[in-house]
């Protein structure tokens, strides 16, 4: 099926070459990081995880969010999603690959990464994260490819694929739960030490992932002959609505516990993020932007007329995606490190090389996504998914 990705018009190849150019530049910067060390980033002794780990965390959510089309399709037999499950699965593949690349980019000694397997340590959450992420990647590759190939040949997918699909549905929340456990089990990091961290991660994942999927569906409709469908997009929009409301609700629960109890080791991080601490407040405008964007997106999603208008919906999904990205991709990780365990405030901001490497990983993910979606849409166009009747899916 991969040959479908080799046939494209000028725009397609222009896009692919543009992504490759970004990847090329970022790779050169990465070689510099490999040579100099992680000192070219903004990370420090106090804020020892930065942009890379934050992007990794956010993208685990996007990957897990893909399950929101798979689950209704297979557990609730919601047939409409049959048209787009493959998009969810392929999005998950691209997102997990980015996650793994961000982990590699963050390692001080990446050539020793295999030590995690050579000296397996089940007591370390990182060991389990390695297992769940690679497992989820493999599951989605096998499932996505087989189901799509069956669709192309106009046959039902093989029987052995079904148990894998069920496994992947359970696996999706697991990847984000384990990722939350990386943080919430650490003594002395009050910001993350909350049992609601994993649920919060999942809520934001199930908002950001499907929101991105809506945007991708709208783009696909515009640039290809395949229409993912109006009903499909509206169903996704409802999922996004519930998820973002739950996400903000969880956040408010945190705010109550932290500020009503007034325990400094928990409160100081929130103070730093939203009001600034001891004169340091680099993230304050970002966090309030995030809150405003998420709140606005809730309003626009809850009003039926606004949600049903696809232009407004597209705008809503963009601001929701940015809002959740700032929350998780900027505040969540460095917020946990400021102040440090000795209550000193060292601020963190990514450096230019760090941002370029980050862009390179995103470009790699987009390239994988482009190729996979090109294949998927090619198959859909072949089998005539242009009409609304799709019986095999």
């Amino acid at each position, binding site marked *: 099926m991969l040959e479908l990705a080799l046939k494209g018009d000028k725009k397609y190849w222009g896009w692919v070459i543009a992504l490759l150019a970004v990847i090329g530049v970022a790779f050169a910067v990465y070689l510099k990081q490999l040579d*100099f060390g*992680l*000192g070219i980033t903004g990370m420090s002794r106090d804020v020892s*995880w930065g942009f890379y780990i934050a992007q990794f965390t956010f993208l685990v959510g996007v990957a897990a969010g893909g399950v929101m089309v798979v689950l209704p399709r297979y557990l609730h037999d919601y047939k409409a999603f049959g048209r787009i499950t493959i998009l969810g699965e392929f999005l998950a593949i691209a997102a997990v690959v980015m996650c793994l690349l961000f*982990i590699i980019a963050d390692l*001080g000694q990446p050539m*020793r990464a295999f030590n995690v397997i050579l000296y397996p340590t089940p007591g*370390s959450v990182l060991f389990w994260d390695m297992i769940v992420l690679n497992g989820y990647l493999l599951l989605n590759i096998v499932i996505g490819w087989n189901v799509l190939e069956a669709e192309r040949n106009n046959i039902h997918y093989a029987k052995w694929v079904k148990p894998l699909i069920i496994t992947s549905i359970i696996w999706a929340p697991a990847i984000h739960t384990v990722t939350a456990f990386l943080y919430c089990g650490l003594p*002395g990091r009050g910001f993350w030490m909350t049992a609601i961290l994993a649920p919060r991660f999942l809520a934001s994942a199930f908002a950001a992932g499907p929101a991105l999927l809506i945007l991708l569906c709208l783009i696909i409709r515009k640039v290809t002959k395949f229409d993912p469908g109006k009903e499909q997009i509206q169903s996704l929009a409802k999922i996004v609505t519930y998820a973002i409301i739950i996400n903000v609700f969880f956040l408010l629960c945190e705010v109550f516990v932290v500020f009503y109890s007034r325990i400094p080791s928990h409160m100081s991080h929130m103070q730093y993020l939203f009001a600034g601490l001891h004169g340091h407040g680099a993230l304050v405008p970002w966090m309030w932007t995030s809150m405003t964007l998420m709140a606005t997106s809730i309003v626009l999603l809850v009003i039926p007329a606004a949600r049903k208008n696809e232009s407004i919906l597209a705008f809503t999904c963009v601001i929701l995606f940015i809002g959740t990205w700032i929350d998780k991709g900027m505040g969540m990780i460095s917020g946990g490190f400021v102040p440090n365990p000795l209550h000193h405030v060292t601020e963190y901001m990514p450096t230019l090389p760090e941002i370029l490497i980050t862009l390179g990983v995103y470009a790699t993910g987009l390239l994988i996504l482009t190729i996979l979606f090109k294949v998927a849409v090619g198959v859909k166009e072949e089998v005539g998914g242009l009409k609304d009747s799709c019986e095999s899916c």
Partner: protein
Amino acid sequence: MGNSRRSFLKVAGITALGIGTKPVLDVFASSGGNGAEPKSEVSQNEESLTAKRWGMVIDTRKFHSAEDLDPIIEACHKIHNVPELTEPRHKIMWLWGDEYKHVFTHREHELINDRIKHLPFLVLCNHCEKPACVRACPTKATFKRDDGIVLMDFHRCIGCRFCMAACPYGSRSFNFRDPRPFIKEENKEFPTRMKGVVEKCNFCAERLAVGKMPACVEASNGAITVGDLDDSESEVRELLRTNYTIRRKPDLGAGPSVYYIV
């Protein structure tokens, strides 16, 4: 030809899979049972100083200002080839001084007496009974010895910095760049580190092994004492018995082995 190539690849693949999974299986096989874990016999230096559980008592009454701490910190950093980096973000610290309100974050109060308020306290790895860093490390590059000392294997560390996030005392440093150009005078008896690995105080394990006291103890004029916490006759136990001592963040349950007489 093609056939033999294929079978070669098959065997190679299975072998690679075997190499990859064997250690994983070993761990799962050994972690459940209380069966004898294979232990290699290492003969010990007869002069080495040993303890069932190493601990440290710092008598802060013997310090008056930051200058009193400097020679101790210098002694430690010098023999361990700790680089002096000018960029504050990249600082490597094994032993350093900080104020009471930063060291004992849960105990500070505004009306504390002036001596305590302005006195710098020595801060180092606490060699915890239940070290969070050891638990977090995905490669066992950091590990706790039977005698309680928490050590690092600089050659196994992948530089993921999970241990730094896990340590509630901020005791760990990461080599954000090659530290070697920043070592003033290299001590050939102790290894230097490379970029991309984490390091911290090692309780002078290399000195204890040859019968020497930790460098900070030697440089402290009797303000720092180390010894066996499990031996009721030891000097540290005597100090703990006769003085009121505090530890950093005891509420976290990590069980720090460094005690402070205030």
